[in-house]
């Protein structure tokens, strides 16, 4: 965060990040509606807004602000009210440090890769608080599951990020993307896989959605939430997809590297993130939910060893190239 930034620039950047934070998740949400529908031979929303239901999520938002804001009698009121914002704001912070091109970045931090990891780690605290404060046994179970999942998947994710950071010799996302070379696609492939799986688990998307498993524990931590607070959780979920896709694009797919990448670098970054977001939706539609023990087994027996092996490969590569 350069000291040379004027107040206006700070305001402008904040507004831009906030706008992206509010718009991109809606786009992903709508994409999910349509992708899911067509993967099930349906059409998806068609009426809201006229043309192919483009305004479905806006209608959802307009609806959610009108809903009665229920507060369970037995709930821990303060924590219950605080939880949605705690789930949402870390993603906002994380999105601010993700670069779209060397110049387009909300706030360029020297260790932005760690900022992102720290922010997502804090974000899951929101789900935990919601689960506990709702005074509902399903919520509590969901909170437990998300805690277990977070602990299990944070380690491989950190290792995967460590691998690319080691390869690039920097902890800054901008630096990592600048150092990126096309052959890293192969070199860092295991790390990319680990990051994809870990990211999917971190934002609790199917098939890693045990904390929300609607056929087992109603809706996990969000069971008691209605109206705007529930909408904030939903927004956090889609913001998570946006964040993870952008991170994949920046760290493993070379972000703005591509033809005419000078002025259109940001477009490349986004274009590379879209297929990743599509992957998250595709996984959701194709695979059943993992069982809790399968989830833990996958994290500890597949992802962690894989990430460690990748770290070794990266280290050897870095040493040999020097």
């Amino acid at each position, binding site marked *: 965060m350069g000291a040379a930034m004027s107040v206006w620039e700070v305001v402008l950047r904040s507004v831009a990040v906030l706008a992206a934070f509010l718009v991109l998740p809606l786009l992903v949400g709508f994409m999910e*509606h349509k992708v899911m529908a067509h993967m099930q031979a349906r059409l998806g929303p068609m009426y809201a807004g006229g043309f192919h239901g483009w305004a479905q999520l806006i209608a959802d938002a307009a*609806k959610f602000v009108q809903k009665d804001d229920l507060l369970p009698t037995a709930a821990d009121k303060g924590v219950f009210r605080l939880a949605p914002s705690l789930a949402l704001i870390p993603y906002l912070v994380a999105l601010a440090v993700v670069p779209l091109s060397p110049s387009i970045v909300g706030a360029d931090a020297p260790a932005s890769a760690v900022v992102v990891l720290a922010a997502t780690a804090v974000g899951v605290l929101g789900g935990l608080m919601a689960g506990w404060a709702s005074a509902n046994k399903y919520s509590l179970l969901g909170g437990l599951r998300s805690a277990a999942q977070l602990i299990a998947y944070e380690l491989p994710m950190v290792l995967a990020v460590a691998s690319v950071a080691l390869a690039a010799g920097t902890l800054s996302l901008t630096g990592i993307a600048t150092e990126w070379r096309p052959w890293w696609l192969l070199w860092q492939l295991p790390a990319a896989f680990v990051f994809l799986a870990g990211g999917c688990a971190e934002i609790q998307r199917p098939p890693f959605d045990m904390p929300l498993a609607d056929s087992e524990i109603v809706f996990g931590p969000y069971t008691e939430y209605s109206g705007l607070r529930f909408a904030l959780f939903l927004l956090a979920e889609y913001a998570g997809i946006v964040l993870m896709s952008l991170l994949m694009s920046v760290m493993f797919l070379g972000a703005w590297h591509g033809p005419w990448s000078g002025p259109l670098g940001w477009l490349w970054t986004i274009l590379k993130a879209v297929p990743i977001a599509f992957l998250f939706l595709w996984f959701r539609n194709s695979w059943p939910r993992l069982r809790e023990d399968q989830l833990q087994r996958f994290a500890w027996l597949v992802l962690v060893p894989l990430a460690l092996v990748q770290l070794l490969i990266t280290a050897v590569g870095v040493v040999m190239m020097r």
Partner: protein
Amino acid sequence: MSVDLPMPKLGPVSEHAPKPIKVVLNWGRRYSLWVFNFGLACCAIEFIAGSASNHDFIRLGVIPFAPGPRQADLMIVSGTVTDKMGPAVRRLYDQMAEPKYVISFGSCSNSGGPYWDSYSVTKGVDQIIPVDVYVPGCPPRPESLLQGIIRLQEKIAGETLSSAGLAEKQRRTYAGHRRATAPEVTRGLVSRP
């Protein structure tokens, strides 16, 4: 056993919104009906047909992703409501956040249907919760459900919401013209002699 439920109220925005905003709000409610299916008998199969690929009521903004009553806006009671089940129906209705709507789907939930003469069947779900749209049929076609949803959407588009109105609705139509809580909606007949 009566729990003193707080009076329902609207979310922060809709209460004091000026008129043009209310049109937008009504539009939002109209096309975002997160549905909560109370499938109690064979009509539930037709409901499922309505949600599946051939009919796909998500086109109309009826979104079946609400895992619990808290997130739902629309409850579709499809099937025979029995006096034993009545309190559960009522409890889940009470757990939904206002503004909420109910579609009674099929003859059984409209009026008891073929079982109206049975000792154990509630004579229509409107005895225990206020119903917005009645869809006839035994079971109705999936298209009937879609038409019922469209009628509900017309109704929502013309609505003016207020907390006072919600309270009035609650006072007027619950449990056979009286206010009652979930445990009280069981008919006297099935209580212990």
